């Protein structure tokens, strides 16, 4: 079993919901970022920004695991790479070694509280009991391993049952994120990778990332422009559903 994710860039509407979902799920400190939405301008006149949601790729041959001098970064049997923050010495070699730059060192100034200058809210305090976010150590996306473990313990299927699926995948309103077992040829992720010619970021590093991308026309070819209409279609559809619902609610009033 090896957990993986497919990000469909055609469907992604660049809404930031996955970023927010991860922050909420893990009570991330203000200066901490696990997933990110990176953006750049296309060279097509009149085109808008193009974006890619990125997070730790849970590399099969992860340099961050190999270099960690304290064995604080570990890889599980199911392929998830995580940091044991009770062991991490904060040397930051893993940050340097990650060719995708998906790790962040939690320094004191990155953790000023949600309302700097004020006491932590009850929400934050409650969150710290679950995710301590130890200052002086390194953090990154862990594929929501707690959700996966808890879900599996209940007999649920990650990627199918929401309770066992990563928070960002659940939240994505455009259904651009798909999660599942890369080792199972019948899983949705495996089928998507095969059918849509999904690609990994910088496969030449030999890291074998577990996060794949689908981009309308490219497959393995370099291109970064997915058709705009397709990008926004699912979102507009989603908005129209909301509009309908809003009419129902406000109409009643």
């Amino acid at each position, binding site marked *: 079993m090896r957990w993986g994710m497919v990000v469909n860039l055609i469907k992604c509407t660049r809404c930031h919901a996955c970023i927010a979902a991860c922050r909420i799920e893990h009570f991330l400190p203000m*200066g901490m970022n696990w997933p990110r939405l990176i953006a750049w301008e296309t060279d097509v006149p009149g085109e808008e920004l193009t974006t890619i949601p990125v997070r730790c790729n849970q590399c099969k041959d992860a340099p961050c695991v190999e270099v960690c001098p304290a064995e604080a970064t570990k890889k599980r049997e199911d392929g998830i790479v995580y940091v044991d923050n009770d*062991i991490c010495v904060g040397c*930051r070699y893993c940050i*340097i070694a*990650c060719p995708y730059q998906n790790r962040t060192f939690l*320094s004191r100034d990155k953790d000023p509280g949600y309302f700097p*200058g004020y006491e932590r809210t009850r929400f934050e305090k409650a969150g710290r009991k679950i995710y301590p976010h130890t200052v002086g150590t390194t953090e990154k996306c862990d594929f929501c391993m707690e959700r996966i473990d808890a879900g599996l313990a209940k007999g649920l299927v990650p990627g199918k049952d929401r309770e066992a699926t990563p928070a960002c995948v659940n939240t994505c309103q455009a259904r651009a994120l798909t999660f599942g077992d890369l080792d199972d040829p019948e899983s949705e992720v495996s089928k998507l990778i095969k059918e849509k010619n999904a690609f990994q*970021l910088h496969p030449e590093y030999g890291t074998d990332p577990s996060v794949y991308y689908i*981009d309308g026309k490219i497959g393995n070819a*370099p291109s970064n422009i997915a058709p705009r209409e397709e990008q926004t279609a699912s979102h507009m559809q989603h908005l129209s559903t909301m509009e309908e619902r809003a009419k129902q609610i406000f109409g009643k009033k």
Partner: protein
Amino acid sequence: MSRMATRQWMTTHEWMVKPMHQREWIERRGIMIWIAETFTSLGAGLYLVSLFINSWWGLLVGWLIIMFLKLPLHIAYFGKPWRFYRTLPPFSNAWKTSWFARGILFSVFFGTFGFVQLVFGQPDLANLIGTSIANPIYYTFGVLAGINAVGTGIYGGFIMNYVKGIPFWNQGLLPVVFILAGVADGFGLTMGIGLGGGDASVSWAETGSSYLLIINILLIIVYLISARYTSEVAKISVQELLTGPSAFMFWGGLVTLGMVIPAAVSLVSLFGEASTVLLIIAIVAHTLGAFALKYCLLKVGIYRPLLPKVAAY
């Protein structure tokens, strides 16, 4: 409003979109890594050269640099310094895969073996217990300390050369640059030991220093040329060194202080005897050059961007 509230940690949407500098090991607290790396070079290099010429004072100073300047700085840089022991067996077996862990082990072994060598090499103590007992111990531990000094001096090169995302570092030659620069630094400091009245020959150290200087100049030229043709991002690194933001450190620090001035002093002594003042200038310039070399290497560590479109980088 709190000052914290206005702080920008990173521009998340621009992260790794274009070629991006590594910052962790050169900016803010990362300066400690730069200085620690330079002390590694100076300490290990001095120890190795002193072993070769059997200079007890050189061994002592080299050992002190590693134990009291390099190691504390490295550990102080850690986010959790008191967990330092976690990097060592039996708590961690990371030395099997991690050059960082190996480097820490080399340093610890170096510290231990070097200490024993220094104790049994101390003339008064050696006379007290008898040279027939002291000498074999001194030489045996000298070999062990020497091997670990090589490891200590070279591991930084392997640490950086392992990073696939930074093509300027990801060059096979980098560890060679590290160790040879260290030995050259060692020769420079050995001159200082000799001038300070220690048991090292100044003229011998000066000759060694001149040869190493020539080798290092050639090595750095080869390194820059080979990096230049490795990838577009490594080319940016080279440009930054030659004409960009790091040019001052490269030309002023590494080339002028680290190479031209020591070479000029060597030339002077080739045709006569260089004065003590000139030799001191050469030693200081060489040492500052060592700091400049590590700064340049760390500062122009640039990552290839993430995006498929610019994969050609």
